[in-house]
């Protein structure tokens, strides 16, 4: 039995780090990723396509999202498409799951407890849905698969030990422990919720197939399973992302002009295309006045670039300056001694030294 599993696509999500056109374009890329997933499902001739929840975002979906999903899944008809709503796309009266005109091959699990769907003789997928945005209980609690054949689980939940591996702020939903999977008689659990991919012994988090933020690690995408009747299986990750969100560090130490920085950025990008967060690091000369117009020229081949200058510092010899018996020296001395946050201290110092230097570019970027 072969199936393709994905989760956490997050159609219609917001990208607060991007301009409107870039964000809109990236949302289109997510749609393209779903189409790609369906293509892979056809190419790999799977017996079922499963989604472990957070397919879209209830609070943000647009009017044509339902039509898009219905038509995309209809295109793979008669391949069974099994959908287990998550906490972001929870099953309610106004959810797409309840209102879309699904083709007959689409099955949406309706209940907040595991219900069976026989993919074919001897293979049952037990799926459940979130029916509220929060406070969903452990689906595996008091559950035992009883088909007598190969039983797989499909739901959106938080495996308790995996929470620590997730970015800070990830909240648990439908929490469960890994041991409950086998205790419930399930051979494997096809999950969603954690965006960082996890290949557990009894469960799999495929990870978000299309990047949603910068610096996502791990091999995220759709996961192709081949299950034998005895419960053994193989698992292969397939990359389906249509775009990339990379973080590129550039050492700009010693740069004295925007052109210096521009040259280093161009060298670091080396023909990269897509969306990137360029992190400028290092100590730059005090004479540097960063001109983003020049920098954007260096990154004109990218779809979008976000510059991060938090790692950049201006190389004033503060120890030497503070020793001066000048206003400048006193200023640096006072600021270094003041109880300020490091970033604020740096900004005040640079601003003051620039002002004393007669410069008009007093904003420390």
């Amino acid at each position, binding site marked *: 039995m072969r199936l393709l599993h994905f989760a956490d696509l997050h159609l219609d999500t917001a990208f607060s780090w991007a301009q409107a056109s870039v964000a809109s374009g990236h949302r289109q890329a997510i749609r393209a990723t779903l189409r790609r997933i369906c293509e892979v499902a056809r190419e790999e001739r799977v017996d079922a396509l499963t989604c472990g929840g957070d397919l879209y975002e209830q609070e943000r979906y647009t009017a044509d999202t339902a039509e898009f999903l219905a038509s995309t899944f209809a295109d793979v008809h008669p391949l069974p498409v099994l959908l287990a709503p998550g906490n972001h796309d929870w099953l309610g009266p106004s959810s797409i799951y309840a209102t879309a005109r699904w083709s007959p091959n689409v099955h949406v699990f309706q209940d907040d407890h595991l219900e069976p769907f026989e993919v074919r003789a001897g293979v049952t997928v037990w799926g459940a849905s979130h029916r509220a945005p929060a406070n969903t209980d452990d689906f595996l609690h008091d559950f035992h698969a009883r088909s007598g054949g190969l039983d797989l689980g499909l739901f959106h939940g938080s495996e308790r030990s995996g929470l620590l591996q997730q970015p800070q702020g990830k909240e648990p939903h439908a929490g469960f422990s890994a041991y409950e999977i086998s205790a419930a008689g399930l051979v494997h659990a096809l999950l969603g919720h954690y965006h960082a991919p996890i290949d557990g012994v009894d469960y799999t988090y495929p990870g978000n197939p299309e990047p949603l933020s910068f610096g996502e690690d791990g091999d995220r995408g759709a996961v192709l399973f081949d299950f034998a009747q005895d419960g053994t299986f193989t698992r292969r990750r397939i990359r389906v992302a249509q775009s990339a969100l990379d973080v590129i560090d550039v050492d700009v130490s010693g740069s004295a002009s925007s052109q210096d920085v521009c040259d280093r950025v161009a060298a670091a990008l080396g023909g990269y295309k897509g969306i990137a967060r360029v992190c400028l690091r290092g100590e730059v000369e005090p004479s540097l006045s960063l001109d983003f117009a020049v920098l954007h020229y260096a990154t004109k081949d990218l779809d979008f670039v976000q510059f991060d200058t938090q790692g950049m510092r201006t190389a004033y010899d503060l120890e030497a300056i503070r020793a001066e018996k000048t*206003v400048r020296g006193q200023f640096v001395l*006072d600021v270094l001694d003041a109880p300020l946050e490091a970033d604020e201290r740096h900004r005040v110092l640079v601003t003051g030294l620039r002002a004393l230097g007669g410069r008009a570019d007093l904003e420390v970027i």
Partner: protein
Amino acid sequence: MRIKRVRIGAFGPFSEKVLELAPGMTVIVGENESGKSSWHAAIYAALCGMRRGAGRRSEDRDFIERHRPWDGDSWSVESTLELSDGREIELTNDLDGRVDCRAVDLGLGRRDVSSEIMFEGSPDASRWLGLDRRTFLATACVNQADVLFVLDNASALQEHLQRAAATAGADETAARGLALIDDFQREHVGLDRANSVKPLRRAVVREADAERSLEAANRAHDKYLVQLETVERLESEVGAAKRQLDVLTAAAAVRDAARASTKAERARMLTGELEGEQIELEAVQRATDRVSGAIAAWNAAPAPEPLVGPSSADLQRELSALPAAPIGDLLPARAVIDGDTAWRAARRALEAHSVAAPPQAQPVATSLSIAELRELARDMSVAVPVVDPELEQTHEELERRLAALPERRVSIPLLVAAAAISALSVGAGLLTTPVALIVGLLLGAGLVMLAVRNTLRDARAPLLVRLLDNESQLGQSRLAADGARNTISAAKATAAAAGLPSEPTGLMALAEEVERVTGVAERRRQWEAAYAEHERAAQNAASDLRAALTDRGLGAFTDFANAVNEYRTVCAARARLAEQASRRPQLERELETRRHAEAAAEAARRRHEAAKQGLAQAAQEQGLAPAVATTTAAALLEWQEANRERLARGERQARARGELDSLLAGSTLAQLANEAEEARRHTEATSADLPRDQVEARAAAAGLDAELANARADVASAHVAAAAARGELKQLSGASATVSGAEEELAAARGELERVRRLEATLSRTHEFLERAQERVHRDIAPVLEQTLDEWLPRVTGGRYTDASVDPEVLGVKVKDPAGNFRDAGLLSQGTLEQIYLLLRMALVKHLTKPGETSPLIFDDVTVQTDSSRTVAILDLLQEISRERQVIVFSQEEDVRRWAEDRLDRENNATLKLEVPPLAPIIHDQSSN
């Protein structure tokens, strides 16, 4: 620190040159093009090196362009320094690649000490002074342009001091820095005010707009979701309505099939019933109706009974004999009776009153009233009081005795006055109020007392007192008697004038007579009044009676009693006639009744005859033998009974035929059977996927057609509602802003606002720190500058200026003139200003240099624009300064050279001359000839 030696490897026009510098003052003189500026720059570069790092500043580029070796050799300089701690340092500066730049301690085996003074990537010996290559240049190096600038600009000195205090002269003043911050804040932050177009306000507005947009987007999305649910619900209702319609349609089909089957079966049964004899129902009904009619008519017309009592003719005759009803009163009218009674009573009352008439009164001749007469009588009877004779005797005696004694006339008027007042007061008191009496008596007593006082001094006094008393009593007695007599006299006079008796008895009698006559007259008056009243009443009663009788038709009469009796008699006669005439209505009713009865009897007779004939005819029609009417009637009844069953059968046949016709309605039995079969098949088709029990239950229920119509209407309206909801949903779908887009815009707006606010906070903090630092440094440096000026100024100005003050706020310099006034240094003479400027440069260097070290001062053509005396003054000053720190002076002037040769000793000082390098020979190209 002192610079001992500078060696040029290659620098500008020089290569392999060495300059030895004295520890005190070194004057280096040279004409233009002798290389003074190059040596000046070389000394600076040898000491401070050049910045090493990516990118070049403009001043670096200028320096390179001006001082790179002319012949392209490797650009390098070296210097040997002596630090204040005694170390001797050799500095090597590769100004080309800036790689071989190092400082070595010659005393420690050339140990590399570069790390102590690394600045901007290369060793900078000014770091030992607490400066850097920029601040050293701005502080320790003084050139002609610096001096000229100060001399030409009144505020340049202050600005220079501020710049030095702020950045050791390398950059801007603190005030300028603060102004830049303020300008930047105004332009790149601005105020959060309604009309501002600056970034802060724009960011605030943008954030607010973005929040509103997000709120609107969320609302729109929620509305969309709600509408989506509504559409789902309505479409579900459409489905439910359609299912309901399907059930009802199937039920109708079941019902119709049942009906069709029943109809076909019924038609078949009726067809069977109509086989056999066909009875002519109409003929049978007609015969039955006729017989029934004849029997009914016979039963309804029995033979009439004969009438009894007087005939109508008899009653008519009796009626004609009755008299007519009389006109007029049958009984005496109440008005006449009451009028007669009243008249009689009035007459009796008048007669009775006439009998009891009182006599007429005789008048008494007097005009006075009874009270006046009695008062006169009383006045005449008043008793006259008698004067006491003893009083008179006593009076006479006292007068005699007084006459015998001498007189004191003083008191006499008083006594007379007292007596008069007493008499008057008594009279006044009698006539008015006791108060007047008391006042008068008191006054009189007072006067008497006064007289007595006077008199007591006199021997006659006691007698006078007694006399006064006596006279008083006597006077009162006489006064009373006189009064009574006067009253009597007045009364008598009044009586006499009125012709009345002059004595009281007569007057009293007269008064009584008057009183009696008055009573008699009054009684007579009352009787006459009553009589008039009775007479009036009698007249009125007669008048009323006359009117009543006249109204009743009585003609003229004179005697009321006779008239009334006549009237009563007429009334009685009328009453008798009226009684007779009252029988007329009764007789008329009896006559009418009799006439009706006679007519009814005639009609009954005729009906009876007709019924008899009808029976005979009906019997004949049905073939019965003629007989008497009663017998014929009985025979017909028998015939009717026998015909009843046939009639019923005929009726049944007619009904069946009608029903069959209705069922067939032009069709045949076979067609009805086909229709039933068709309906059954239709039922199976429509009920295929429907719950059979529901369909059958509805088929059996009443009102199915109405329910079906309602269900169709429900489906239609559900479709309409769902379509409308879909339309609305489609409109909501077209909302321009998405939630994600709005969230992104809000994030961007907040990011921007955060940036601006962070910038605002940073600028504000920076301003605060900078201002505080300026205040503190100025506060520290001002006294240092003051102290230097106070120490040096008198010396260099020959005592002309003895004191200085430096304003710590703006570092403005003032000096005290001989008059004791503090004057702005910028407004002093050029020579003094130069000296002050040089002293301040020295003070600044001293202040800014790290404690424990002294910085050399390098001057370049600072006396070019000064006259000889000022030049000397400046050089003298510099010589003074060189006692505590190394001074190097570059000059092109001969005066300076002469001064140096004259004034500088060779032990600690030096005078050096730079020669202009010879021109390189011009080599002509021989090949061109």
